[in-house]
Every structure is written in C-alpha cells, then in structure tokens.
C-alpha cells in the first residue's frame, strides 16, 4: 500500500512540474505536438507512474528509482564544447551515419556525409516544423498513452529526439547509428522521443547506443515510434551500456503494415535499472516480426523486458527470444505476451525465455503469456531457468580447460544465440567483444569507475 502512495505522490509532483513549466515545454514545439499533451495529461492523471499493482509492472518497483533528486531537462542546454571531441564511438570500423543525442536533445552539429538526399535525419523538434505532412501523419499515432503511464509521461514532456524518414522505395545500406549520451554534472531526468518512418518498400538499419559519460544519476524515459510501411525492412539494434546509477525506461512502439519485416534486438550490458517495453502491432497480413533481447545483470541491477506482440491480421509471423544471465543480487524480469485477435487466422507466434542464475541471491521472474481468440493458429511459448550444465562443465574440464574458462565459454555459448542475430558486420564483432568483457566482469568495473580512462 505504501508503495502506491509514494508513487502516486511522485506522479502528482510530475504533473505539477508540467503545469508549472508548460509554457517552457510548449514554446519550442508545434501546436500539433502540443495537442497530444492534453490527452497524455489526462491519461497520466488516471494511471500515474506504474505501480507493482499493475500486472505489467508486477515485478518492477519504480519507486526507488523515481524518488531520487533529479534535475529535469526542460530545454536544450547551451553546449559550447564539441561533442565529438568528448565522445568517440569505439568501433572505428563501423561505418555509419552517426546521430548524437545529448541528454535527450538532438545535437545540432551532426553532419551526415553522402546521405541520400531523399532521406531525412534530423531533430524531432525540427522535423515537426517542416510542414510536409509525414511527421503529423505518424507522430503520437502508435505510442498509446492509455497503455502505459510511462508513455503518457513521455508524451507530456516530449520536445526533442531523433526523426528519421526513409521515403518510398529507398534502401539505405549504411546503418544509422543513434548515440544517446548522458553528460552532465548534475543528476538529470531526461525525456526523449524518437520517430522512425520507413515507407513502403524501403529498408533501413538502425543502431542505438546508450552511454553515460559521467558518474551521475540519470533517469531517462524514452519513447520510440517506428512505422514500417508495406514491404519495408527495418533492423533495430539497441545496445545499453550505462553506469550503475542510471535508470533507463525505454518504450518502443512498432507498427507494421502488410508484408513488412521488423527485427529488434536489445542487448542490455549494464545499467542500474533497465526497463524495455516493446509493443508491436501487426496491422496487416503477411508481417514478420522478430523481437529479441539479451541481458546481463549483476550487483543490485534490475533488468526488465516487456514485449507485447499484437496479431491483428491473419498470416503474420512473430518470434520472441529473450535470454538473461543473472549474478550477485540482481533481479531480472521477462514479461512477454502474444495477443491474437479474433480474425487473425493462420498466425504463427513463438516466444521463448531462457535464464541462467549464477548466484543464490539472484532472482528471476518470468511471465510468458498467450491470449488467443482465433482457432487456426500455431502459438507456443517456453521459459526455463537453470544454471550452467554440470555435465558440460565437466566435459570441458576433462579437455584441460580450467573451470573459470569453461564457465565463461558456456555462458558465451548461451548468449551467442541472440548475438548471432545481429546483422551489422562490425557491430557484431564489437558486441561479441563487449559481451566477452562483460562476462569477465571488466565492463561493470569500468562502468562503476569514476576515472573514465576508456
């Protein structure tokens, strides 16, 4: 009961913060963007911050994370330094269009060499002012604020983020890399909002990297709306690597049209609290959706993955695979749902969650769900929790591999199923390297260190 009270108190504070600063927040946005705030406020007033009483948040307690002192970022900072001097992506071979985002605001000095001119990559605020109709057609259409209090909160405060538009028939070979950087000497609460529109017959590959550059607490609440037009192809890879004090609430809403193909893969390497909500709507026949995730948690981390795939039309195919390795006092949650509407016959939907617990104190909650209203379907789900296979360990030991190395090898093999899905060549190698480092405990060491020698 107490939790509910405090969270509702925090929700009131957030509402007050909005009403006090609404002028400032709305000043830079177009009327169209502002028009969503009324409904968002209404929904947020109704639901507030999600509490453990809500079925989807049963295992995630947001209270401790929202309680901290945060400075809300309500307008873009005047940033005099050159961001590219402070931050360099450490995958030199990776050839991408780099989009830097600082504390939730689009970095104005981003330059894209050789970007086909039909393609637009720009700040969300900027995009909303370009009156070509695409923005207004898609913004706010997929992130249903009545589904989730966090989405409502984001819509309430949303000002900027990244906007990507791939027009009809354009296939962009080079990946777009969005780098979200938290950089400040204050504890920050960050809101960012992205919109990715891939029109019919287009193709795009997006890589998202989340980084914290300072040893401060950050609470970021992001919403990404993705629209996949007919026959389009989108690959969306997300790598989360932040410090232990950070809280990342990431909400992704994917809307797919006929015969489109979307693969999203979220790799959570490090962070204090990570909550990934993925809502997918398969709105036309013939869609294919793959939602994957891999997470590593130790210390007191909490990593929660929520995936909801809604099959609204027949002949769609979806696949979910989430794997996790938990150590120390970490807690992990998987909550997946397959919803098959009444007329979505010939649906094929699969869901799997495998977890390895390495310590006695680690805890995993898994809730794979099926909700099916059509009869001609093939749906299945599976969940397992276990530990490293003793027989396999023994086998490796007999081959002269020491125990530490053998354990490492087995964990890597476990994780590899998800990693191997990544289709961006140099990124894959980098992920393998990061996972390797993570499994050896080096990554957490760096993330918790204040020197920042890397």
């Amino acid at each position, binding site marked *: 009961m107490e939790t509910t009270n405090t969270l509702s108190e925090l929700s009131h504070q957030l509402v007050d913060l909005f009403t006090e600063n609404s002028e400032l927040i709305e000043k830079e946005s177009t009327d169209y963007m502002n028009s969503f705030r009324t409904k968002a406020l209404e929904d947020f007033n109704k639901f507030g911050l999600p509490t453990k009483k809500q079925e989807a948040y049963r295992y995630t307690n947001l209270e401790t994370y929202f309680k901290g002192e945060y400075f809300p970022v309500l307008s873009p900072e005047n940033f005099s330094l050159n961001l590219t001097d402070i931050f360099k992506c450490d995958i030199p071979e990776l050839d991408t269009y780099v989009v830097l985002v600082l504390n939730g605001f689009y970095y104005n000095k981003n330059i894209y060499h050789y970007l086909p001119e039909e393609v637009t990559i720009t700040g969300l605020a900027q995009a909303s002012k370009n009156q070509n109709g695409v923005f207004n057609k898609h913004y706010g259409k997929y992130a249903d604020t009545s589904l989730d209090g966090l989405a409502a909160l984001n819509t309430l405060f949303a000002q900027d983020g990244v906007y990507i538009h791939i027009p009809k028939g354009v296939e962009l070979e080079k990946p777009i890399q969005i780098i979200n950087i938290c950089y400040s000497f204050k504890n920050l609460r960050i809101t960012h909002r992205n919109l990715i529109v891939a029109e019919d017959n287009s193709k795009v590959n997006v890589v998202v990297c989340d980084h914290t550059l300072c040893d401060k607490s950050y609470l970021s609440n992001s919403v990404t709306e993705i629209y996949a037009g007919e026959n389009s192809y989108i690959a969306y890879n997300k790598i989360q690597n932040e410090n232990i004090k950070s809280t990342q609430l990431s909400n992704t809403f994917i809307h797919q049209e006929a015969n489109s193909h979307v693969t999203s893969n979220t790799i959570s390497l490090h962070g204090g609290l990570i909550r990934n909500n993925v809502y997918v709507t398969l709105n036309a026949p013939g869609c294919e959706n793959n939602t994957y995730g891999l997470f590593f948690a130790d210390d007191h981390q909490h990593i929660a993955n929520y995936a909801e795939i809604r099959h609204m039309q027949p002949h769609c195919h979806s696949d979910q695979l989430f794997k996790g390795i938990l150590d120390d006092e970490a807690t992990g949650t998987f909550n997946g749902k397959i919803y098959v509407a009444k007329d979505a016959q010939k649906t094929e939907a699969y869901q799997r969650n495998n977890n390895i617990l390495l310590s006695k104190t680690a805890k995993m909650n898994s809730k794979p769900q*099926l909700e099916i209203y059509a009869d001609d*379907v093939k749906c299945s789900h*599976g969940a397992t929790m276990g530990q490293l296979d003793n027989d396999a360990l023994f086998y490796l030991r007999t081959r002269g591999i020491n125990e530490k190395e053998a354990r490492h090898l087995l964990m890597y093999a476990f994780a590899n199923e998800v990693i191997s899905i990544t289709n961006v060549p140099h990124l894959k190698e980098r992920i393998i390297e990061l996972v390797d480092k993570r499994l050896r405990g080096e990554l957490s060491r760096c993330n918790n260190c204040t020197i920042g020698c890397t």
Partner: protein
Amino acid sequence: MNVEQDKILEEVTGSEYKYGFITDVDTETIPRGLNEDVIRIISAKKNEPEFLLDFRLKAYNHWQTMQMPTWPHLKIPEINYQDIIFYAAPKQKVSPASLDEVDPEILSTFAKLGIPLEEQKRLTGIAVDAVMDSISVKTTFRETLAELGIIFCSFSEAVQEHPDLIKKYMGSVVPYTDNYFAALNSAVFSDGSFCFIPKGVRCPMELSTYFRINAANTGQFERTLIIAEDDSYVSYLEGCTAPMRDENQLHAAIVEIVALENAEVKYSTVQNWYPGNKEGKGGVFNFVTKRGICKGDNSKISWTQVETGSAITWKYPSCILRGNNSVGEFYSVAVTNNHQQADTGTKMIHIGKNSKSTIISKGISAGFGQNSYRGLVKVLKNADNVRNFSQCDSLLLGDKCGAHTFPYLEVDNDSAIIEHEATTSKIGEDQIFYCNQRGIDTETAIGLIINGYAKEVLNKLPMEFAVEAQKLLQISLEGSVG
C-alpha cells in the same frame, strides 16, 4: 474446414446436460441474505462449539472489508449476496444410522446420478460421503474404515466428535484471510467431508465425496479437510452436479489437505456442475479454493481435475511444498463450451529442499468458451535443487472461442531448474483426414483426438473416474466440433 465437418462439430458440442433434474424433497432453508445473525443461525443449527462460531464471525468481519477481485480473465456478473440462501438441508433425521432411514427420494437421486450409497455394492469399492445442498446425507463404509483407524465422516460430525483435530488443522492451509471467497466460505460453510488417515495406514479403498446442489436460490459452501499422518496414503475423489436452473448459483468451497512425513494424498475431481444453457443463461459459479501442504519430508500431494461443468470456473488447486523432497503434481483437463468461462491452474510454492513439481494442463475451448491457464511456480531462497516441469496446452475448436495462458515463474534460488512450455493449436486437418481415410467418421475422429490429447491427465484418474471422465469429455463437447 468444410461444412460437413462444421455440422458434425456442432452436433458433438451441442448436447444437453443430463444431470439437470430436480429432486422433490422437503428442504429446510433459512431466509435469504447474509448478516451476523445468519451465521449464528447456521452455527446454532449445527450445534457448533464456541471456537467455530468465533472463527466464522472473524471470517465474516474480514470478508466485509474485502472486495471481489477483478484480476481473473473472466466476465462475472455481479453477485448479490443478500439474494442467496446460505443454508439448505433436505429434511431428515440427523445422521441416519442405516440406509433405511434415508429419504428414498434422496436415495433415488444418488442412484440416478450413479452414486452407490448401498454398501452391498461392494464391487465398486468406494466409500462415499454424499452431500446434498448444505448437508451430508450419508457416509458409507464408515465402520469398515474405522477399524483401521480412518475417520471418514461429514464435517459437522467431525466437529462434534473430533473438535481437537478440527481446531488444529482447519484454516491452517487456507486461512480465512486468504481470499474473498475463502473468507466467505469460512463464515458460512455448512458441511463437507472430513478425512483423517492415521500413521502408517494405507487406505484400502477410494474415498469419495459427491456434491449435489438441489434447492433453488441457494449457494453451496462446503469444506473438505483431509489429514494424512506419517507414512499414510489415501486417494480421494470428488464429483458434483446440479439441476438446470435459469439463475446462477454460487458454489464457493474450500479444500484443505495436510500431508505429513512420507504421506501421499491423491485428490481427483470430476467437476460437472450445471454449465448453463447454450445461450449462457444460468449455470453454477464455481469459485473454489483448494490447497494442500506437504508438511513433512518426502510427502506428496497430487491434484487431478477434469473440469467440464460450471458457467464460470475459477480455481487453483495448489501445493505448498514445505517438506524436503516433497512432491506436488497437478493434472488438469478443462473444457469450456458454449458460453462457459474458466480461469484455472495451480500454484506450486517450493520451500523445501529437493522438492519437485509437475504441472500438466490441457485446455479445450469450443463454442464461445474462454479458457485460461494461470499458474505460479515460486521457488524460495532456501529451496535448493528444486525441479519443476510445466506443460500447458490449449486446443481450440471453432473460431469464436479463446485460449489463454498466464504462467508466473518466480525463482529466487540458483540451483532450481524450471521449465515451462505451452502450445495453442487446433485439431489438425491432416489428423482428421488420416482417421477418415481409415474409415473413421469425423465425429468419432474428433472424439478420438481429444481423448488422446487429454490422455496424459485421464491416465492419472482412478479407473472408475477415468471412464466417467472420458464419457463426460465427449458429452461436453458434443455438437461443438468444428
């Protein structure tokens, strides 16, 4: 699927409920409604000791502070508790000594239902406690069982004769604070069965309770308590039917099982309450709390249920695995046809080391039926080497029904191995085609496939029940195959 097949399916799932008759017997009832006085009346009628009345009143006061939960995947019409008769008993002499003293009408009712109350029918080898409305009518084979030290009688008799056992165990597995309907039952429960197996005794016959709702506008609230002492074994069966009535009737029961060291309890249910008519009118609301505790080491509790009746079924037979090496099992077949709804499953709470649990759940939905599996597997911090396997399959017959799976896995120990898998599909056209090709008509083929699908669970039932359950499955689905 082709039209021909649809037609046969419809025929198969459209059959009538055959236990829907009403017995014309004088019934003693108390006025409708629920208040403290009603509870005092019930308690006085049963001549209960002080502690039981206290228990009831505490439960009632607690119930008043509670609200009907809304989390299940069910559409439940509002229940007016002031419109229910909480106590109804067929008028007869208190605890008949021999069968001759039982009202012949009642006897014929149970004969019609196929329940043997005459002890001459030794062949069946089942001891029966028959409960009609709120009262236990007759318990058979009492003397034979008493020779072994087994106590098998109605709950009210146990209250009179073994108050110490009741005091010790009642509410120890399902406290009155447990949930909304457990609190309601604790306040108003009328009768039920009581079973006590002493140390080292293996119960030689199947024990059985048969529940029958007869009177109109009544709710049935019975309580079953089974205690298996060290090294004992018992297999317990439960069956139920009700007449066809247009209004919904509430059945909120509690079953508590205590298994001490090395004890084994097998509890089987064939639930066939009146499911309502094809339009979804009438039928029994079956909101039951069933829970067993494996208190001692190496103990075992096994739940088997075949759920074909009731307009709404809402129950989770659960096991608390407290003893080391204890075992919990749950086997279930749940059928929803026409407008029936079911939200059923189990909870396996692993507390003891090396405890194991198995969950096999088979859901079958037809017509407009909505069938949900909801289950929890929880492993506590100190429960080392826990093993769980869960399998939940759903079969959909027809495009207007739904099948849902909501498993919860909460694991707090790294040595646990937990597996859960579920599938949802319809009957394969190729399977039917194969049968057709072998000269088996579609209707028989579908029956065959469904029986094969449910076999894993039906196999766990005692033989007499398995036959009945198989028939029941076919009847429940009659006319719905499509």
